[in-house]
């Protein structure tokens, strides 16, 4: 096998195009190396994208943030502007694994690993984040929600890879939050995850909302019914109950070693209620 370490996007695209066998992108490596260790992946080539210019950068763009595909969760949490604008997304990325993992794991990698339980993805979907994708046919932007298509599967074409994630500009009085449930306090894969983003008007009435759930379906899902329940309200307790109900109703989980259908369905609602409350507070709601 080969280890390739391009320094430009074009080189990376060319290298990917030149590979005939199983070629994998290496960002933080916290999923890929585990798969290799377990024998689930035996790539013929690894393309390390971290030396590509811009991949380690967090840039202001159109009032939002462009986060390079090689930026780790720990690096995100050290960017004060980003934390102020998108605390939920930063927390979600910072929840992936241990301190050690957070020093390596990236949102782009978390997205392309396409686990339904990926922590950063519900937060990104709630944030309406957009992935920038490079490939043999040039560059394209795709909403994060449309990247994963099933467990371990993405809509990326052969030779394509994510170069950055764009988090849009925040209107005033906006807040987001991500909560997940795990059996321990750290180190587990989410049994259920929930990302919420809200924007309030001057009166505290919700004008925009997005709610996303992880680990309750083959991919992270957006729950429009929950958003509808929020918009136009002041997010009082009765509304939070409705959001919880909508999220439990939207959940179509499986039972596995991490949780049961009943547990995930119920806890999806619990987390939605709690995350909405945090997002509301962050948006300045009372």
């Amino acid at each position, binding site marked *: 096998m080969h280890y390739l370490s391009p320094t430009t996007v074009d080189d990376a695209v060319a290298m990917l195009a030149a590979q005939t066998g199983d070629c994998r992108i290496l960002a933080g490596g916290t999923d890929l190396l585990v798969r290799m*260790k*377990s*024998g689930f992946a035996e790539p013929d080539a690894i393309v390390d994208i971290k030396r590509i210019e811009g991949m380690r950068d967090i840039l202001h763009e159109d009032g939002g943030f462009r986060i390079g595909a090689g930026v780790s969760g720990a690096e995100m949490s050290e960017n004060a502007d980003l934390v102020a604008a998108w605390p939920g997304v930063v927390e979600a990325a910072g929840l992936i694994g241990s301190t050690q993992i957070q020093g390596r794991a990236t949102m782009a990698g978390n997205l392309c690993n396409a686990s339904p339980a990926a922590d950063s993805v519900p937060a990104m979907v709630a944030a309406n984040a957009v992935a920038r994708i490079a490939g043999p046919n040039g560059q394209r932007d795709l909403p994060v929600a449309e990247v994963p298509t099933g467990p371990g599967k993405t809509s990326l074409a052969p030779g394509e890879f994510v170069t950055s994630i764009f988090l849009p500009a925040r209107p005033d009085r906006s807040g987001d939050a991500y909560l997940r*449930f795990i*059996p*321990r*306090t*750290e*180190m*587990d*894969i989410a*049994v259920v995850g929930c990302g919420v983003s809200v924007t309030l008007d001057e009166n505290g009435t919700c004008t925009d909302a997005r709610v996303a759930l992880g680990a309750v379906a083959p991919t992270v899902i957006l729950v429009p019914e929950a958003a509808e329940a929020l918009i136009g309200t002041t997010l009082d307790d009765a509304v939070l109950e409705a959001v919880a109900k909508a999220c439990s109703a939207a959940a179509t989980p499986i039972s*596995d*070693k*991490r*949780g*049961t259908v*009943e*547990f995930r369905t*119920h*806890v999806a609602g*619990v987390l939605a209620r709690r995350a909405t409350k945090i997002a509301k507070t962050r948006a300045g709601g009372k």
Partner: protein
Amino acid sequence: MALDSKSDLPQFKVVGTRPARPDGIDKVTGRARFGADMSAPGMLTGLILRSPHAHARIVSIDTSKAEALAGVHAVVTRKDFREITDDDFTADILDNCMAGAKALYDGHAIAAVAASSTKIAREALKLIDVTYEKLDHVTDVDEAIEDGAPVLHEGRSDETVPAGMSPNVLSRYEFGHGDPEEGLKNADHVVERTYKTEATHQGYIEPHACLAQMGPDGQGDLWVCTQGHYMVRNTCAAILGIEQGQLRVTASEIGGGFGGKTTLFLEPVALMLAKKSGRPVKMVMTRSEVLRATGPTASTSIDVKIGMTKDGKITAGFAEMRYQGGAYPGSPVEFGAMSAFAPYDLEHVKTIGWDIVTNRPKAAAYRAPGAPMAAFAVESAIDELARHFGLDPLEVRLKNAAREGTKASYGPTYPAIGLEATLRTAKDHPHWSAPLGENQGRGVACGFWFNFGGDTCVTLNITPDGTVTVSEGNPDIGGSRASMSMMAAEELGIPYEKVRTIVADTGSLGQNEVTDGSRVTFAVGLATIEAARAAKREMCKRAAMIWGIDEEAVEWVDGAAQPAGPNAGKFPPMTLAEIAETASNTGGPIAGHHEANPEGAGVSFATHMCDVEVDPDTGAAKILRYTVFQDAGKAIHPAYVEGQFQGGAAQGIGWALNEEYIYGDDGILQNAGFLDYRVPVASDLPMIDAVILEIPNPGHPYGVRGVGETSIVPPLAAVANAVSAAAGVRMTDLPMSPPKLLAALHAKG
């Protein structure tokens, strides 16, 4: 401690202090060499092919393609080992290390290769063609004894098993006295429940590893992480048909064992690969292999019936316990049956234990093997009875506590024991009276372990410059070298820093029992003290020669020989260093030995107290506060005694809350990694308060009891009682993982 019993023990100078351990610097700098840290010139990598099936007949194994691969130097299957009859003690050990006729569990070793690189070895494993005939499997202990359950072995049940039972039931044990049915008639309330515990793994962070060399002359060398290198030597020699004296085994530093490194997994295979290849072979397990094919403990299903009067007197106790010990005989059910009611003074008590096999890895010992599950069942039922009557659960335990003179449920009459002291200390501790908030609960539970001695051999050498080296044969798993140095220093009357203790290889000392059963500080400590006493006698003799007086007229005081009796004061004392300096002139080197099988270890008891908060919306349980009260007999190095208490408690908390073996319907282990085999992490736990009580064991010169095992016995029940109190629903099935607890909360309504 106010409650410590009076004793005529010596006033200690070194014992009871907290010096730095001798291996401390090696371990904080990364210099300490563990199992996987050794290499040898020309070394090959050994890997094992493991069964992907839970139960299958091995029809054929074709290794020819693997053998033909460049870089492969040896392939080993069961047929490379000599025939061993079923009644030989090594038969099951070998079959577990390398399957014979059948693969008995997911992960069972089928073949092994040694190659010039890990990559080639991996490739070679893929080239081994195994034809399996899949068989039905069973992994649940209760299902295994049902009619028509898949049978693992025919004809292995012993004479204690009544006719007509499933062949998966291998042994029956019964202990107790009196007539429980009669006793239950005097009860005002009876709790009758079935409790279940899932298997847990010892979870040592260091995977099994060894480095083997084996010459055509039958001489071998083995470097291995183990709790007992003498056991490794003897068992490997028996399996390979070589002489014990020809195999030298050196124990590496050991990265945790907790009972899981008291048997063999890789070692005979590594030696066989080394023999066939003529090269040193290193084998290191992956974490997945560790979880699939080593350890774990038994899973259990236990029926309990306990009666109590309204004033809290237990009138009778009965428990019937089913333990599955994996694919071979030897679950620790007899210890569950012996220990279940050991903390109580009961007129009517009976326990029945069944040893059952299933398609799971062969259970290995795990810290107080068999006792935590039994204590979970009994202590939960007692807690429920106390709550039923509105009685203080500590008072109920005090009312029924075993004391000196109590006839134990497993037979003997207790000498002085410390249970009552732990209960009284618990009751007086601020933890017991601290307020609790909403959704919080407090639980207590007691636990017991036997402790024992075993073969022990210690050599203590006096160097020419008057320092002391102690050689002992038990791997240091938690600071025991420090304890040995302390006891030698205490006995010799010299500073701790003048003594260095090493763990010697099998060529350097006589037989030593495995580091298990909380025996080391007791038995090796005793032998160290006796070896020091022998050296003191010799040094008194040397001083007597120099002074020209009878050696009986010399005594050892404060690190020096001094004339005694009629000669007192006639000569200035000769220090250890002074005597050592002239040893060549007075008869040669000075050493003390002690070889013995010290018996008479003292039993030990503990009471644990735990506060938990339950999230009613998610079923998550958080440990808020935890206190251990345990009798240590005498704490040689209190910091390491506290460490044993805290470590046992943490393992027990994991067992209670989130650790479990999860098998799919296909009999395949689903969580063979630290990601989903969930041991407690730092943020899961509070500080664990450790209260040491010292009720001396008369069987040890300094009063030592074992401390390592008792600490894992109470936590399962202490946590379950706390969770049950916080949740308002009785939890009888471990682990109390959030989905299970939430379902119980919902069922309660």
